[in-house]
């Protein structure tokens, strides 16, 4: 029994060290964020509110410090977060007012041409080729504009509507683009009729031509690889790397090992809302729906952690082997010690 007591002490001390170094320190270094919310209206307004609260607290702390410059800067940050909250609230209220159920796919098909979408984008399934090859397109726009055939599969109707109405806000890159430096994709100005009804028609059209099923790899290629490489799977960006780097301000990282370097959870939150995890980042919010996003992460896992299944079964076999060995060893020890005690 004394031996058991000593063992328990060793386990407890080891456990405390483990808990302190891993979950505890980790939670301090990576503060908790609200989990990914695929209702983007809620996600954006909640984040704006959280930021406003944090700015409020920072201002109080600044006031306590009494330093004029810090107070000034904190006040400015607070005003910015307030403006941001108003901006997102107004934007999503407008999007929510669109009646997507009334969208007419046939009208949308005509609109695609009239609205000028095909000036930059191709739609393969509708036999509309992209006006430029990928390389030249990325050299003119920074990044190759996506083919629109499968966006109805990748995105929620509501997010598509938001994207069409104001891409910079929907993608959360409005901090980088303004009137002097406009976002490459222009907001849809309408083709003469009721703007919101036309947006609903476009969304209905994209839904109607979208494939029913896509492989994990296809989803990854369409959602991520216009900027990012995945060299361990021989997936490389189709555009000009230098143009992409100039457009984003840095070369987008290779994603081969991101499942390991960032973890499942981080990736899920980050793809869902880039600004929440990395404020100020140049990477747009991807805006995938829950299913498409899980496919992206599952593809990243297949590439970055390709031996997961083998690892888990092999380890189980090894544990079983040592358990059996341990039982034999225990029996042998009893035999030897029966003569010693």
């Amino acid at each position, binding site marked *: 029994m004394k031996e058991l007591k000593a063992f328990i002490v060793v386990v407890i001390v080891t456990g*405390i*060290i483990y808990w302190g170094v891993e979950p505890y320190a980790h939670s301090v270094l990576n503060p908790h964020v609200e989990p990914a919310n695929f209702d983007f209206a809620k996600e954006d307004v909640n984040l704006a509110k959280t930021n406003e609260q944090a700015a409020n607290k920072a201002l109080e702390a600044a006031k306590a410090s009494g330093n004029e410059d810090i107070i000034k800067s904190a006040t400015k940050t607070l005003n910015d977060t307030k403006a941001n909250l108003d901006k997102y609230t107004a934007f999503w209220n407008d999007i929510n007012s669109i009646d997507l159920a009334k969208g007419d796919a046939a009208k949308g098909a005509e609109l695609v041409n009239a609205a000028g979408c095909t000036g930059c984008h191709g739609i393969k399934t509708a036999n509309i080729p992209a006006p430029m090859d990928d390389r030249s397109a990325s050299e003119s726009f920074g990044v190759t504009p996506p083919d629109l055939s499968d966006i109805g599969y990748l995105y929620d109707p509501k997010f598509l509507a938001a994207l069409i109405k104001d891409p910079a806000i929907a993608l959360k890159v409005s901090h980088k683009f303004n009137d002097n430096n406009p976002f490459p994709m222009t907001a849809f100005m309408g083709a003469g009729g009721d703007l919101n009804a036309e947006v609903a028609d476009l969304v209905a059209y994209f839904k109607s031509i979208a494939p029913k099923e896509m492989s994990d790899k296809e989803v990854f290629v369409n959602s991520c690889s216009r900027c990012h490489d995945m060299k361990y799977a021989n997936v490389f960006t189709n555009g000009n790397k230098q143009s992409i780097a100039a457009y984003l301000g840095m070369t987008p990282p290779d994603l081969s090992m991101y499942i390991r370097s960032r973890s499942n959870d981080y990736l899920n939150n980050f793809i869902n809302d880039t600004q929440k995890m990395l404020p100020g980042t140049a990477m747009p919010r991807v805006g995938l729906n829950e299913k498409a996003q899980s496919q992206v992460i599952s593809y990243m896992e297949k590439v970055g952690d390709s031996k997961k299944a083998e690892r888990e079964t092999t380890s189980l076999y090894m544990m079983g082997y040592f358990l059996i060995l341990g039982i034999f060893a225990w029996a042998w020890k009893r035999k030897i*010690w029966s003569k010693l005690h």
Partner: protein
Amino acid sequence: MAHITKATSVKDWFDQRIALTKLWNVLAGQYWIPKNINFLWAMGVILTVLFTVLFVTGLLLVMYYKPDANLAFDSVNYTIMQEVEYGWLWRHMHAVAASVIFLIIYIHAFVGIYYGSYKKGREMIWISGMLLFLVFSAEAFSGYMLPWGQMSYWAAQVITQLFGGVPVIGDALVEWIRGDYAVSDPTLTRFFMLHVCLLPIVLIMIIVIHFYTLRVPHVNNLEGEEIDFELEAEKYLSGDTKNSKVIPFWPGFLSKDFMYVSFFMIFFTYLVGFHFGFAMDPINFDPANAAKTPTHIYPEWYFLWQYEILRGFFFDIGPMKAADLGALAMAFAGISLFFMPLYDRSDVVAPAHKRKGFFVWFWLLIIDLIILTVYGKLPPTGFNAWIGFFSSVAYLALLLVVLPVITIMERKGNK
């Protein structure tokens, strides 16, 4: 020359030439171990097993690893982890064993402190053991760098920079260690040599010395009892195995160890397959980038207490710069436990729970080391910095002041 006669068996043939039976008796069959020891004394055998695992998996990894700044990261994360059959297994076993071996080293060392196994004739066991700890630290650090990830790169940058604190030759020393002005390809290749060649040779040599140091004073036991090994061995050999206080290393002690090792390996393979994250920092799966510093730089868990002592002295004291104070304190912490036989002024060899003052001191030291370890990972800002400072001072005080005082009191009280 020995008188050689016609051999009666293969064993006899060898016996006449290399004294096989005698060697076996010295190494195992009549190497006497106290009967009164428990699983805490099995740590040495577990360490030997882990070292063997590290050695063998290391050899397998070296077959595919490329010690080149441009190739290292992919050779580990793609070639070894994904292309080589069971490459992931060797890599995970190597990484997890490297981390777990420190846990067991710490348990092994603190069992030695708890039972007073470092004193009265056993000083050389302790000193050779601490030497092993020191070289293992260098081995771990040089190996940590090889995958050329973000954290290993920046850890190398920070740790090599420490040598800049050496008076007069500091800057030249840093450059000499790195082979360049910053950590780069020449640093990687020389650390590769250290990790796979020089340090393992040194380690094996010290392990042999460490084993040898046990032979004369023998292993300590649960009660700190002084055993007359020759007398007890005679008892054992005459057939009175039940009353003898000693057992032979083989099969007595090893049969027990074999069982402990088997059960330990269940835990170990669980870690390898399902919980390797604790031994592999996620940040290290980003390739090294000299132009981008990670938000937080910290070493692996087993160096955190020393790292916190380095950061603990964060303000200048008199003419001493904070950085130099920290480096000095850490340098001392690294070798501080060597001098345990000197700090302890009492010659009582007994488990801590039979030495009141020492018992309290032991647990204070453990608590202080846990605090240092946890705060070594947390960002050193505000309140945390002060906790780091006080626990660093406490570490130095516990060893240099408190332990001598309580052991002198113990010695005087005994008279």
